[in-house]
């Protein structure tokens, strides 16, 4: 008997059918990957399962009994625990990790009213022992990495006797090495009989974890793939059209470089390296979290001064002290995590599409200082047209757009003016495969500038770049160039 059976689940937001009769079966002791482009209905399905949304139609059975949670608490009670993508909310700064682990026990009254440090520590340690991994119990929750916060959430889920664990993009904000650790933990939990349903866009996750991949499109399940999973077919099912996987068209460049870096030490004591970027070239730099991907980009953009080394832009010495210097010199950067680095909060001035695009270009577009004329609207419309942004127009609030379209807007911002070098830090975060394809095409179409992309997903690097560099301990090493070729033959 399957653990969870979902039959004909439907849910509509106004005229939008987010779920249109989705059916799915999950058994104990298996890991199921839930794939789908943005708007395919994954999140809605998860929200219904987690009890945050009520289904309009359809039935769910959990372990033979009807399952219809009316709140997250009811879902947890029944054994369905969801770990959401933003793990900051698992605890709070100022709490120790032990406190964060026991937070739900404090809230539901199962912990005693008066707490002693030792009893809290003992209970937390016991939870971790049951879960089978270690965390620094006395550390402040705020000091934990995203991966460790994820583990706190998982440990809490397990302590509540979860039979189904739902993970929403568990590796979205963690590095390759930390992902490996998480995979191992999840596989062990699966072997102990836990059912795991996870959403991810990362092929590495699917490869390492999934026993089965379920693909959604348009609010229904359109395909299921058992092991060995044919990912190319799964992805094609997901976006509903064929997909080019590798870059058989990797180009090489022999012209004078746009940006030359020589003897760069990102931090004092790291191995010096050189880097040259050519016009029209797309270079990806990949490596684990903390290896220095962002630091490299920040050094070029002027937000962080390297410990040593020189940079030359079009042959002239280039030493930016601020982002303003970099932008003036024609070096643009779209930072990691667009909500934090690029976007305004909703309802705030500048949170619609047009001002989002115009923010760095205001001085150039409005030299007199007054925001007269429709320049930014025209530029926004141009971005909408050229990048295929799905939005109601230049006035559309940025939060009404899907993740992929938001990322297109950010790219549109930096495409709006000519540049020499474009730096993109994790440009495919929370971007579905279809939009990723469009973004890659747009990035590669520009032949005037050099593009340097930092990504922690090697597959993404393969997909986008002419040349891949690996960064480790704040220093660059070129990747074995045979790899893209091999992929191309495979495809």
């Amino acid at each position, binding site marked *: 008997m399957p653990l969870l059976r979902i039959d004909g689940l439907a849910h509509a937001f106004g005229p939008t059918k987010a779920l249109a009769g989705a059916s799915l079966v999950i058994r104990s002791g298996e890991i199921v990957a839930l794939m789908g482009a943005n708007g395919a209905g994954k999140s809605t399905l998860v929200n219904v399962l987690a009890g945050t949304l009520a289904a309009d139609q359809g039935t769910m059975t959990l372990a033979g009994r009807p399952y219809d949670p009316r709140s997250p608490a009811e879902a947890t009670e029944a054994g369905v625990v969801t770990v959401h993508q933003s793990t900051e909310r698992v605890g709070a700064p100022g709490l120790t990790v032990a406190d964060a682990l026991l937070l739900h026990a404090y809230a539901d009254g199962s912990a005693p009213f008066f707490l002693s440090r030792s009893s809290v520590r003992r209970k937390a340690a016991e939870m971790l022992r049951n879960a089978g991994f270690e965390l620094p119990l006395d550390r402040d929750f705020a000091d934990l990495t995203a991966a460790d916060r994820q583990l706190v959430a998982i440990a809490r889920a397990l302590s509540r006797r979860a039979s189904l664990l739902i993970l929403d993009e568990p590796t979205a904000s963690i590095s390759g090495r930390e992902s490996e650790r998480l995979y191992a933990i999840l596989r062990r939990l699966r072997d102990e009989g836990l059912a795991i349903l996870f959403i991810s866009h990362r092929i590495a996750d699917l490869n390492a974890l999934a026993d089965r991949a379920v693909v959604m499109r348009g609010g229904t399940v359109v395909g299921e793939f058992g092991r060995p999973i044919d990912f190319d077919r799964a992805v094609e099912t997901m976006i509903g059209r064929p997909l080019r996987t590798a870059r058989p068209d990797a180009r090489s460049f022999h012209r004078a470089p746009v940006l030359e870096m020589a003897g760069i030490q990102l931090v004092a004591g790291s191995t010096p390296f050189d880097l040259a970027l050519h016009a029209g070239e797309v270079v990806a730099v990949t490596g684990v979290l903390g290896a220095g991907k962002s630091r490299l980009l920040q050094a070029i953009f002027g937000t962080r001064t390297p410990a040593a080394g020189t940079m030359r832009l079009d042959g002239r010495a280039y030493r930016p002290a601020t982002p303003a210097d970099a932008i003036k010199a024609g070096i643009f950067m779209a930072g990691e995590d667009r909500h*934090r680095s690029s976007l*305004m909060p909703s309802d705030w001035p500048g949170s619609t599409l047009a001002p989002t695009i115009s923010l760095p270009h205001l001085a150039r577009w*409005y030299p007199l*200082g007054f925001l007269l004329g429709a320049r930014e609207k025209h530029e926004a419309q141009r971005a909408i047209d050229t990048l295929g942004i799905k939005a109601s127009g230049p006035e559309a609030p940025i939060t009404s757009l899907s993740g992929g379209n938001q990322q297109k807007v950010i790219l549109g911002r930096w495409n709006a003016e000519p540049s020499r070098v474009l730096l993109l830090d994790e440009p495919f975060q929370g971007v579905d495969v279809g939009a990723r394809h469009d973004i890659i095409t747009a990035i590669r179409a520009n032949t005037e500038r050099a593009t340097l992309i930092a990504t922690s997903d090697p597959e993404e690097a393969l997909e986008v770049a002419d040349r891949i560099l690996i960064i480790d301990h704040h220093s660059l090493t070129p990747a074995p160039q045979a790899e893209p070729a091999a992929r191309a033959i495979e495809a």
Partner: protein
Amino acid sequence: MTTLNTESKDPIGERVSAAIRASAVFILLIVMVAGFALAQPAYINVTNLMSILQAVSVVAILGAGVTVTLAVGGFDLSIGAVAASSVMAASYAMIVWGLGVYETVPLVLLFGALVGLVNAFLIVRLRVPDLLATLAMMFLLTGLQLIPTAGRSISAGLILPDGSTATGAYDPAFLLIGRSSFFGIVPAPVVIMVLVAIILFVLTERTRLGRLLFATGGNELATRLAGASVPRLKTLAYVLSGTLASLGGIIVAARVGRGDVSSGASLLMDSVASALIGFAVLGLRRPNVFGTIVGAVFVGLLLNGLTMLNAPYYTQDFVKGAVLVGALALTYGLGRSQAR
């Protein structure tokens, strides 16, 4: 990952609710004025309306300054104290130093700007949280204004701490700032308020600089990465706020004609309240200069009407508080419940 679709189930209901939110304050305003006018016809005559506007002008000017600091994601609690010490500074300059209007006004404005600069230094350079920095500055100024005169109010013939008598007097031209009116109808403070309102409205809503000020408050990192100088923008906001507060102080000084140690006691609360009421005006849910001015006028119209109907003076703060609570509930409560 798809974010949860936040579109309401009923787009028409959502639009109606937005329209109600946008116009609620104006509808209330009209109902209120009509009610008071019916009860007391003298309420609606031009002289009374002008006296209301004159009464709120200082609060509105200070409120505009608060709005600018709110826009950069800060908060200036020192404005009341800046205004009060500006009253003292103006009086001291004229009565003790014997300066005229043309020296006094720039001097006092400079004083306000300087306080703003110190605030900005504390907040931007030393990274003191804005509320704490400006609260400390408020304390400091409240005490500082008492020192030169050993705690006495300043009027002509003031006996200084060293025993001598001050020889200066208020420049009659200075008094015109507070007491004259244009065409015998529009008081000068009202004209100044309108000018400040127009300039600041255009600055915050229609210029590149305003866009960047709001961007700083919305997402500081994004603003910096877009190439703007966040420290400079924040400094500008606090300097503007300090300068506007001292302008308010000048108007108060010109109206009362003496340096009263207790002047400006309620200015801070009133101006912050009008800035917050401004969030509800047009349903914007954010600081905006137009809303702040409307908020200040709204409170003025209400208080004046109640006074005309013989409501006792001690109910005034309660009424202001009730308006603020209502406005905030309108801003954050309504619409929110519709959207989720």
